[in-house]
Structure formats: structure tokens, C-alpha cells
């Protein structure tokens, strides 16, 4: 297990900073390009992908990096969405709304985490699920949040004269917020704290012996994840215009986990790749056949059989086998 930890450390944190800076214009050009030439439907597609990416990244901070499977992250995502939903009619500044979404998501995660983190592994997964589902059931009974219909017609207020309701502007706004969130998570993952989380993932007992306060770090990761999930939920409410009980349901919690596994949960960029493929695939197939989930399932199965650790896992293995040999031949053998 130990060697695996070091190995995944290397792949989940890009070491080559100049290369990263050199690559930066690509995403920027992409955001601007979509904003310039995309039609309503394309803009909406990419905005949805972006918001999904942030949620998946937040879940993967727990799942991929800390090794904690939560099946209740929809709770914080949904709380973020409902926070925006409740504030939207009061002409609150959109940035303030998103900050509050993040705050409510984080606070809820702190409360639930303090209780559920006494457990680990699958029991933890089921307990987080139980709290999430309880919250889901509560929405059906509350008039204030629209019961089973949720809050509809959410339109973000203007941001200093800029109309966020415009699909093009909403796309750029979402892309910027998601990028900031993703950058933050990336910084966390390559910080000493992030390395400690991966040590906890790979061997919690050893981490404890090495002096890492495991419970506190897990709780901190859980709260961070909840706060970012809340932010993603707030964006979701902006993009979709609704905050519905659906957004709190356990399948909403499962989606980012599946997305992470699909892209490669041990890789920071796994959820990013996973989100693009997942949203595009469900989008395309659901329009082609009523039995679309059959084909999605078949696709996942092919990925699992070819590369059990997700698409990036397969790419990484191919890279180790062929790419590195071409690049720096003998160096790896020396290790």
C-alpha cells in the first residue's frame, strides 16, 4: 500500500510548473471560444459540465484523496442550491449568494461530519447517506422551500450592471467560479495537508502513528468538501434555475462518485474528464433511446474491464509503458 501512496502522489500532483503555465492559455481560449461561438444549447451544455466538474472535484477531495466514500454529498450540494433559491428573490449580490451557499454547505458538513466521522468505510457511507436522505424527505414537508416542487424560476441578480441571466455571461461567470474553486482544491491537494490526506487514505493507522491528527484532518476535508459542494449547488441553482428535492437525493450523491471513478478517482483531473464524458454521454444517449441507461452501463463496464482505475488510470499506465520509455528511458528502472 505504501508504495502505491507515493506513486499516486506523483501522478495526482503535477510537478512541472512551467509546463502548467504554458498550458494555461488552452482553458482560457476554450472558455472564450465557447462564449463567442456557442449557441444557447452548447453554452448550456458546457455550463452544466462546469458546474458538475466542481461538484465532482469536491466529492473527490474526500473520495479519491482522503479515501472516504460519502454517499451524502448531495445534502451540501442541495443546501447550497436551496440557499441561492431562497435568496434569489431578494436581489442579493450573486457573489454573496454563492459565498453563503458555500458557508451553509460547510456548516452542515461540519455538523453532520462531527457525528458521522466516528465511523469509517461503508458505515460512514451509509450514515452520510442516511443524513442526506433525511434532509431530502424534510423538503417534501416544508412549505417554505416549495415542498416537492422545490424553488423554481431562480434568476441571478445582476452583478454590477452585468446580466448573469444571459447564457454567454452565465457561462463565463460559471467557468471563472469553477476555475477558482478547482484551483483552490488543487492547491489543497498539493499542500502538506493534501499529502497528509493521501497518507490517511493509504494507511490511516500509519498516518496516526506519524503524528497526523486523523480525525481532525478528515473532518477538515469533509467540511471543505461540503463547502465546495455547497458552492457547486449554488451554481447549479443559477444554471438550472431550480432548487428541487432531486438535488438532495442519494443518486445525486452517487453521480460525482461514479464520475470520479470513470475519469480516475486517484487523479486530480479524473473528475474533470469524467464530468465531460458523463454529461455528454447521458445527454446524447437519453435523446436516442428510452433504454439509454443500458448503454451507459455498457460503456462503464467497458471502461472498468479495460482500466479498473478509470480512464486516466489507463492513460497513465500506457504512459508509463510507452511514453516514459521514449522520454527518459533508463531513469525509471533505476528507481
Amino acid at each position, binding site marked *: 500500500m505504501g508504495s502505491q501512496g507515493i506513486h499516486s502522489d506523483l501522478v495526482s500532483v503535477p510537478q512541472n510548473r512551467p509546463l502548467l503555465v504554458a498550458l494555461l492559455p488552452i482553458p482560457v481560449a*476554450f472558455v472564450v*471560444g*465557447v462564449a*463567442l*461561438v*456557442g*449557441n*444557447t*444549447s*452548447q*453554452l*448550456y*451544455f*458546457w455550463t*452544466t459540465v462546469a458546474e458538475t466538474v466542481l461538484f465532482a472535484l469536491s466529492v473527490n477531495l474526500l473520495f479519491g484523496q482522503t479515501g472516504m466514500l460519502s454517499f451524502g454529498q448531495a445534502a451540501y450540494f442541495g443546501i447550497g442550491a436551496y440557499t441561492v433559491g431562497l435568496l434569489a428573490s431578494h436581489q442579493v449580490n450573486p457573489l454573496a449568494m454563492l459565498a453563503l451557499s458555500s458557508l451553509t454547505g460547510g456548516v452542515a458538513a461540519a455538523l453532520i461530519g462531527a457525528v458521522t466521522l466516528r465511523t469509517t468505510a461503508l458505515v460512514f457511507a451509509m450514515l452520510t447517506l442516511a443524513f442526506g436522505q433525511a434532509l431530502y*424527505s424534510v423538503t*417534501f*414537508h416544508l*412549505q417554505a422551500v*416549495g*415542498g*416537492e*416542487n*422545490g424553488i*423554481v*424560476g*431562480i*434568476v441571478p441578480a445582476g452583478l454590477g450592471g452585468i446580466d448573469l*441571466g444571459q447564457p454567454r455571461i452565465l457561462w463565463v461567470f460559471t467557468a471563472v467560479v469553477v476555475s477558482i474553486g478547482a484551483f483552490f482544491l488543487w492547491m489543497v491537494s498539493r499542500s502538506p495537508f493534501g499529502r497528509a490526506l493521501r497518507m490517511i487514505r493509504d494507511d490511516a493507522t500509519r498516518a496516526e502513528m506519524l503524528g497526523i491528527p486523523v480525525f481532525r484532518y478528515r473532518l477538515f476535508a469533509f467540511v471543505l468538501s461540503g463547502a465546495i459542494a455547497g458552492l457547486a449547488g449554488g451554481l447549479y441553482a443559477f444554471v*438550472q*434555475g*431550480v432548487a*428541487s428535492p*432531486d438535488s438532495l437525493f442519494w443518486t445525486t450523491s452517487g453521480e460525482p462518485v461514479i464520475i470520479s471513478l470513470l475519469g480516475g478517482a486517484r487523479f486530480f483531473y479524473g473528475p474533470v474528464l469524467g464530468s*465531460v464524458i458523463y454529461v*455528454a*454521454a447521458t*445527454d*446524447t444517449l*437519453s*435523446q*436516442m433511446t*428510452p*433504454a*439509454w441507461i443500458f448503454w451507459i452501463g455498457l460503456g462503464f463496464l467497458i471502461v472498468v474491464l479495460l482500466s479498473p482505475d478509470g480512464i486516466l488510470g489507463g492513460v497513465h499506465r500506457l504512459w508509463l509503458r510507452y511514453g516514459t520509455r521514449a522520454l527518459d528511458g533508463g531513469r525509471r528502472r533505476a528507481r
Partner: protein
Amino acid sequence: MRAGILRALGALLAGTSLAVAACGGVSSGGQASKAGPPIKLGMIDTQSGPVAAVGTDGEKGARVAIDEINKAGGVLSRKLQLVTEDEQLSPTASVKAVRDLNSQGVNLLFGFTSSADALAAVPVVKELGMTLVAAHASATELRTTQFVPNFAAVADSDAQSQSAAPEFLRQRFPDIHTWNVFSYDYLTGHQGWNNFTAQMRAHDSQFKVGKEVFIPQSATDLTPYITSMLSALPADSGATQGVYVFLYGAAEVNLFKQGAPYGLANRFKVILTQGGGYEALANTLKANTPSSWVGYDYSYKAFNTARNRQFVKDFEAANQGTPPDAWAEQSYESVYLYKAAIEKAKSDDPAKVMAVFGGLTFEGTQGKVTIQKKDHQALVPQTFTHFEADPGSAQGWKESETVVIWPSKSS
């Protein structure tokens, strides 16, 4: 049928042509004055999942209407064309479907099985300057607090059907004063029962509420709810009491399946179901259909109008002799509503079409239908149809009686 992934790649690869197309998408109504290109109607309805029948039957009805209209020369000398999207019983998928249709230049929409989905879609329809005719979605909010002028409804509102029910019951079952209820334990479920009881009180001074059983939407085993109802009923309830069932889909079917061994259906003189709709129960339970009344907008036997005769004939011809159900009729009627509106507006520009919704009249299956000015609600009657098992027949059930209640103009 356009592929989402291609669309996604398109955003990356396409150049100025797309930008032009995108600008065109915003004001697609511009070509309205030119005769020739087909007028596209977008149908967003459930095509997958447990209630897919609403959307698939609805599509059949819409296609019959479009074939009839196109054979008769179209609308403004242009053909009608149907574009469909799956509602997926998801507010998110519904919003996406609206945006997809908009970017394809399809701005006149109808459909929606779920009110929650329609409620999510309406603000986007308004934002994009489209129109939406609710074929099945019945939430009262769509006609009141969330009403927008872009919206019109062929489907009866919950408020409308819940006030028609007591009228029907007073006519047909004047001796039944005590009513029990099975409803969902969430807002619409409670509101529905409250509307019903308020209207019953207004109609019947002896009205009494019996046992109220509210079922959470997460419940799978309904036996405890059934026995909770049964143990509250007096011995003679089968001759003296009624039950109002405001459930739909699996919950409604499971209630009667799991209740059958206990003789649930025989413990009431009258069963009135008003949540799910026409035939859903009977088509699933077949020869085990309980003797019950279903309140909904339409029954193909109920109306002897020229339009309805034509509809039933054309529908049966197109569907191997199967008569149309209410979902097919609601979609059929939605298409005719658009035909009337486009002709009155002399344009398929959504802005002009929505301007003529209020006060519009057209020939519907039930006769002359008027769209109310205040909430764009079509004033259509409620039909109360008695279903019972008919083990001898191929389908296993039959409709033995239908009562039509017309809305009062004030509602």
C-alpha cells in the same frame, strides 16, 4: 435526435457559421411571414421511466392531430412538424430540453407530465421568449403564483378538478357524506385533500371527514397504511362511506394490489381516484381493476362532437384499433390550440402567439373550448368514468359509465 457530444464538439470546432446560427436562434420567429417552411411544435414529455405511457401515448395523439391538419392544408399554408424531447421526470432534464429546442429554433412547446418539471421549465420559456401549453401538468401554481403570459393549459388544474369532484359526487352519490382519504404526505397531497374537503363542505352540510391516511413518497410497503385505514372504518363503511384517492403511478397501483387481500375496495361504497389519470390503474391491474371512479379530463366515449368522432376514428386507424386515452387527447388538443392561436395571430412568432392565448376559442374534442383571459386555462370539462374488471374481455376491464361535469365560468 441530434447528438449532444457532437453539439459539444461543435462549440469547439465551428467558426463564424455557428455564431450566425446562434444569433438566428434567438429570433427564429422572424421567418414567420414567409409561407413554406414547416412550423415546428416541440413536445417535451416523459418517454422513459415508469410513467412513459403519458408521453408515448401523448405523442401518438399529437401525431394524429398533425396528420389531420397537414392533410387539410396545414396552418397558414405551412405544414406542422413535431420535434420531441424526453422530460425524464426531472426538472433539470426539462430545463435542458427547453433550451435544446430553443437552439433548434423550436419555440412553440407543449407537453409535461410532471407539474414540478413544468414549474421549472416555465421561467426558462419566459426568459427565451417561447410559449408552453401544459398538456398534462395540473399544478394550480402554474395558473396562479407562477403564471406567465407565455403559458396556457389544456390540462385541468388541480383546483378545477377538485371542485368538479364534489359536484359530481353530489349528483351521483348524494347519500355518501363521510369521506376518507389516501393521499401523498407532501404539500400537493395535503392541498388536494384540503381543496376537496372545502368544496365538499360547500356542497353538503352533512359532510364528514373520516380517516385520513397520508403516504410518504418513499414508502414501498403500503400494508401498514392500508391496515391503519381499515382499522378506523366502521363495519358498515362498504355501504355508507367513500374514499378519495389522490395518488398516482406505482403508489396508486400498489395501494390496490396490497389492499386486495384485505378487501380494501369493498370497504367503500365509492372509490374516487383523481391523481394519476385515466386508465393508468386499469391498464396495469387489468382483470384485477377495482370497481372505481376516475376523475380526469377526457374519456373517448363521453363526447359526441364532430372533432371527437374524427379523433377517435383517426387514432384507432393509426394505432391498430386502440382507442385514445386522455394523455393522447390532451396532446391532440394542445396541437389544435396552437393551430387556432397561430391562425388568429397570423404568425408563428411566439410573442404574437402568446398575445392571442387569452380569450382564444377553438373546436376541441369536447366541443367549443375557450382559453380564460386571467390564467390562460382552457375551460374543459371533467369526466368521471366508472371502471370495473371485465375478466372476459381482452383488456380485462371496461368503462361502464361516464359523467361529464362542465366547469362553472367563474372558476
